[in-house]
């Protein structure tokens, strides 16, 4: 420690750029976290608008609003934007904001790369969205871009789609490296691994998943590129390739990817449930082991997305058993949350409401996931609305709800103001009711035989589709309440205490609200803080 007085401690920051350049050049984890979160919400609204187009077309049988080709572009880009533009950047934003504060670090380990990994994202999505306006349209082969539909039969804009995907992948990999380096090197003295908050743990594991599988996606996308433009035959039987090979490579990325989109949620819920139960998280170490088990198993289940492709029976059995196994650690997590609430002292502020909704609805998504794991029955569910219902339960009322919960939980810390509790409750109740009107009936559409990704459907599905569409519009509009709450909270409101939630635990509550631009320039003394979990 040099002998400095508090006055010139921040002397080196007096020349901070102002206005737009502050955001372009920033290397501060809080600024970058905010940008990630704002970007993510923008993309969430855009992807939601595309979902509205889909639901409007499906409101009644027959074609009313859009051509089938444009409908397919909407389903494709909706999926890509929600996965790579909304959910993943939201988690990266939360990691940027919270991980350094939770482990007592001054910033992320690689601040300039941090800036770069954010700023390439808007260009990736400009490319992707721009391709919709090209002659021939944007990607229309589903977010899973199965070959040969995405190679021989795809529109001219496919090159742009591949390039955009590469940029998103590079951004994710850099973000993941940053998280790993930060957590392994910058924990405050005494912050042992088994004292880290679960959000840090889940993100550490998620980061390893990202580094493992994003290059695999890049490989799949590059093969699609060369098959389409450079005459290779990776996925063309006529040249010695195999279209099913694409699916194996894609889902080897894709299944860990869906856990990338849920593991940080587990961390968020594991912070919020104890806070509003005023009781320590039940089974901290088993939560860590369960998360690691889920991550490990995620590499052994990819082919459950491909049961109908004609795999050998042995492979079908192997992937069925491994997939069923995943419900054990997932179940352990749910039981632990319930045990945390058991005999606690519960209050129901908005973050807790979202967390409880998460536990119930994510578990319903887990049940349908277990049903989908059973190969013989999966033959009936596969590629129907039952699958659409399943993954929207775990991604919308799962991942997205957990992100909402996190936003409400940490908004006072970010802005220094309390948000409008009444409006936020309106947002919660509108969302939780409409999300079920939107996705619950989809289970039955699927069971009754409605395939996915169709712009028009047989008459027996009409009534339920109308209900689903109404739920969809309601859910979409409900998110505008969230926008209002966040903007109001950023602009003003009742000042928030350093620890606005009575039962909250962790280092982030030891700094003032709003969190100062620089925190923990000297490591915190952990003796003053109880165990991190």
């Amino acid at each position: 420690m040099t002998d400095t007085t508090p006055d010139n401690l921040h002397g080196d920051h007096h020349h901070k750029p102002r206005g737009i350049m502050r955001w372009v050049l920033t290397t501060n984890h809080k600024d970058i976290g905010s940008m990630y979160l704002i970007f993510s919400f923008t993309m969430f609204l855009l992807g939601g608008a595309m979902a509205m187009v889909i639901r409007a077309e499906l409101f009644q049988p027959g074609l009313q609003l859009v051509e089938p080709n444009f409908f397919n572009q909407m389903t494709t880009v909706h999926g890509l934007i929600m996965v790579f533009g909304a959910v993943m950047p939201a988690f990266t934003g939360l990691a940027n904001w919270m991980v350094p504060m939770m482990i007592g670090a001054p910033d992320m380990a690689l601040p300039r790369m941090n800036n770069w990994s954010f700023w390439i994202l808007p260009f990736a999505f400009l490319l992707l969205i721009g391709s919709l306006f090209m002659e021939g349209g944007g990607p229309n082969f589903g977010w899973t871009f199965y070959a040969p539909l995405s190679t021989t039969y795809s529109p001219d804009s496919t090159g742009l789609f591949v390039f955009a995907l590469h940029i998103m992948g590079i951004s994710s990999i850099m973000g993941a490296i940053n998280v790993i380096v930060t957590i392994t090197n910058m924990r405050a003295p005494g912050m042992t691994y088994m004292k880290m908050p679960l959000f840090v743990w889940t993100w550490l594991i998620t980061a390893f998943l990202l580094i493992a599988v994003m290059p695999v996606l890049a490989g799949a996308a590059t093969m699609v590129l060369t098959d389409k433009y450079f005459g290779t035959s990776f996925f063309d039987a006529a040249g010695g390739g195999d279209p099913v090979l694409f699916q194996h490579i894609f889902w080897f990325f894709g299944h860990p990817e869906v856990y990338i989109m849920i593991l940080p949620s587990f961390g968020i819920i594991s912070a919020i449930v104890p806070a509003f139960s005023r009781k320590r998280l039940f089974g901290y170490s088993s939560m860590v082991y369960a998360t690691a088990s889920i991550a490990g198993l995620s590499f052994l289940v990819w082919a459950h997305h491909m049961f109908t492709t004609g795999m050998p029976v042995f492979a079908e059995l192997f992937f069925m058993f491994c997939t069923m196994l995943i419900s054990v650690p997932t179940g352990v997590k749910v039981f632990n949350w319930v045990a945390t609430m058991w005999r606690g002292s519960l209050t129901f502020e908005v973050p807790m409401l979202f967390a409880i909704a998460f536990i119930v609805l994510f578990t319903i998504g887990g049940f349908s996931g277990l049903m989908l794991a059973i190969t013989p029955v999966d033959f009936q569910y596969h590629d129907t609305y039952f699958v659409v219902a399943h993954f929207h339960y775990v991604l919308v009322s799962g991942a997205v709800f957990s992100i909402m919960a996190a936003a409400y939980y940490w908004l006072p810390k970010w802005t220094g103001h309390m948000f409008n509790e009444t409006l936020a409750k309106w947002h919660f109740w509108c969302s939780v009711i409409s999300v079920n009107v939107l996705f619950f009936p989809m289970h039955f559409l699927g069971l009754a035989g409605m395939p996915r990704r169709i712009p028009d459907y047989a008459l027996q599905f009409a009534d339920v589709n109308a209900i689903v569409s109404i739920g969809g519009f309601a859910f979409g509009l409900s998110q505008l309440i969230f926008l209002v709450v966040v903007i109001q909270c950023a602009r003003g409101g009742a000042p928030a205490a350093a620890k606005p939630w009575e039962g909250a635990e962790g280092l982030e509550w030891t700094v003032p609200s709003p969190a100062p631009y620089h925190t923990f320039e000297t490591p915190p003394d952990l003796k003053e803080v109880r165990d991190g979990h």
Partner: protein
Amino acid sequence: MALLSGPALAAEREGWNLTQGVTAISQQVYDLHMTIFYICVAIGVLVFGVMFWAIIRHRKSKGAKPASFHESTKVEIAWTLVPFLILVGMAIPATQVLLDMEDTSEPALTVQVTGSQWKWHYRYFDHDVAFFSLLASSPEQIRNERQKRDTYLLEVDQPLVLPVGRKVRFLITSQDVIHSWWVPAFAVKKDANPGFINEAWTKIDKPGIYRGQCAELCGKDHGFMPIVVIAKPQAEFDAWVQETALAQQKAREEEQRLLDMEMPMDELMALGKQVYDSRCGMCHQSEGQGMPGVFPALAGAEIATQPDRLVDHIDIVVNGKAGTAMQAFGPQLSLKELAAVVTYERNAWGNDTGETVQAAQINAVKSGEDL
């Protein structure tokens, strides 16, 4: 949970559930589905019951004081092992059903199912019968200009006909992208992969009409390639096969006779429009305008208006264009239909070449001769 499981149980009774189907396998699959569904409901009621008990009874506003316990190895082991045992109980019947489903040995009859954008083709291995099966719902119905029939989007011009009570094996493949042949009533869903052959089988118990759809996104009209299977008693099936084989034989002889025939323009144009609307219009559009950047326009196109490009025009219709969505229609249409559709494309939408194309010319290109 009660809020959601209530409608769930009601929906099951209302026919919003998985079909029990008409085969032994589909019934087993249904039973498996229901067993697992009830297990999930039971676990859900238990877990959420405990959770809502805590939510109601352990509120701070009711003066609840937090307990201090936060771990228990015994409990953790219990709720790891018990779910594992439940899973083993599920896996055993699931494995049995799966092994039955994948046993395609000793079929009485084999049908080759070929998907292509956006129709199915069926060929009977043991009989001289093969045909395409296209959506029968009209574009007017899809555009809401005409009343939709009850079977809207689930009806075809030529259904697949199968005998009941016999093991039918399907050999499933594709000509272009991946499709998936799905008939819920048989619990058969198998992907059609280009360049590879997948096997599936069924043994239908009850005569009747069973409907399904393509289940894998296969491009623009993925939602418009249904499957209809008519299951008939053995005797009726045999009669149908003989009759159809004979009719197809006659049609092939008719083809040969046609080679010496000159068809008049108006007849060619009428038939040509019919063929164009059912096979070509979905990509090249009803007025031949195409979709820029995706499907080329035919109206005003050089290939469809220049007399010296006639051979190229016939060639691309007959043999398709490799590496694009343009299929080879030579094997799909009769010489008469091919002649009519080429004539139509060269004279409709202001292309007005005045040329008629005859079956003999098509046949010449098909056999690789010059015109």
